[in-house]
């Protein structure tokens, strides 16, 4: 299997450069992550993040043949060769495929990602009907991998001011949670300037690359409708079978 991987050593390189690799695919190399881990046997300096190896932690998000995805759930056999692997677009590169997620998490924190409810807590849980709980489907599953945000052109041009698809789908998750009492403040925070939410042009790159098949673009549309006072529909957000890089 032939691969071409972006390398960057901040102590030695002036900028990222592509390095070619060749490796025999073993029968156990089902996913791209398996190949990358065995590549480290050839070249121990190759650096990337990884953890759960099953598509739930979001650590190994990277740009594979031009399209963001998680290396651990991208089938190695389906990839066009040479497999071109680069770090997530638009994010500062710390080393090789490892990017700086600080700004991404700053945007996440800026949408108040926790339930705000000053009412005294009940004996057990704050209750929700099944219909109310269903509204969160298609949003709570976000694993904060940053595939969507780093494939969004609007985020590329304004990463400091536009919250990005991931932050906004998380904002949706709290705006539409029946137990939250800060809806007005959340909506005002997102709608009172032209950047935080309204940079979204419905390009839909986010939905295309989400490894969990989520559709942040529609979360954003629903938030807009709620701001406009238009009645929101029942049910959660659409989820589609994830589209892997090829």
């Amino acid at each position, binding site marked *: 299997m032939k691969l071409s991987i972006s390398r960057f050593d901040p102590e030695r390189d002036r900028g990222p450069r592509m390095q070619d690799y060749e490796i025999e695919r073993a029968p156990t190399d089902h996913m791209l992550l398996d190949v990358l881990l065995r590549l480290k046997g050839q070249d121990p300096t190759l650096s990337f993040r990884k953890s759960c190896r099953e598509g739930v932690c979001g650590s190994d998000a990277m740009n594979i043949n031009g399209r963001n995805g998680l290396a651990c759930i991208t089938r190695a056999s389906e990839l066009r060769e040479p497999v071109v692997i680069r770090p997530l677009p638009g994010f500062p590169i710390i080393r090789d495929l490892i990017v700086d997620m600080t700004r991404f998490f700053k945007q996440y924190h800026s949408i108040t990602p926790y339930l705000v409810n000053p009412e005294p807590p009940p004996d057990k849980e704050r209750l929700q009907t099944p219909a109310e709980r269903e509204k969160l489907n298609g949003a709570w599953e976000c694993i904060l991998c940053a595939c969507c945000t780093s494939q969004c052109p609007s985020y590329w041009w304004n990463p400091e001011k536009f919250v990005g698809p991931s932050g906004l789908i998380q904002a949706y998750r709290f705006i539409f949670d029946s137990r939250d009492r800060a809806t007005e403040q959340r909506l005002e925070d997102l709608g*009172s300037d032209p950047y935080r939410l309204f940079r979204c042009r419905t390009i839909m790159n986010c939905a295309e690359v989400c490894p969990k098949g989520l559709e942040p673009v529609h979360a954003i549309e629903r938030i807009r409708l709620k701001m406009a006072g238009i009645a929101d529909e029942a049910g959660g957000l659409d989820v589609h079978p994830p589209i892997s890089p090829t």
Partner: protein
Amino acid sequence: MTGGLTASRLTGLRAWWVQRVSAACLLLFVLFVLYSFARSTGSYAAWRSWVADPGVTLAFGVFFVALVGHMWVGLRDVLLDYARPAGVRNALLVAVALALLALAIWAVAILVRLHR
């Protein structure tokens, strides 16, 4: 739902509404405008009397208003995305706003002149 929120606080939303409403208006009127231009291939007299018809003049007037509103939101979006630093961006926004104002005045002048 959003009982306490007034439109004036949600400035991002206001621009979005202007763009959507003007788009719907333009959709209706662009067909009308194209039809008008098709009629213009006749003589000068026929063309002039068509546009000078009060109903047609009004339709063109509504079209231009929607057009200027739509152009403003669209061009503003392009500048907000790409123009930096803030000083340059604001200067360009002002320039575009003035140009659009000039276009609007010009369009009104053309239509008014027909009814002298």
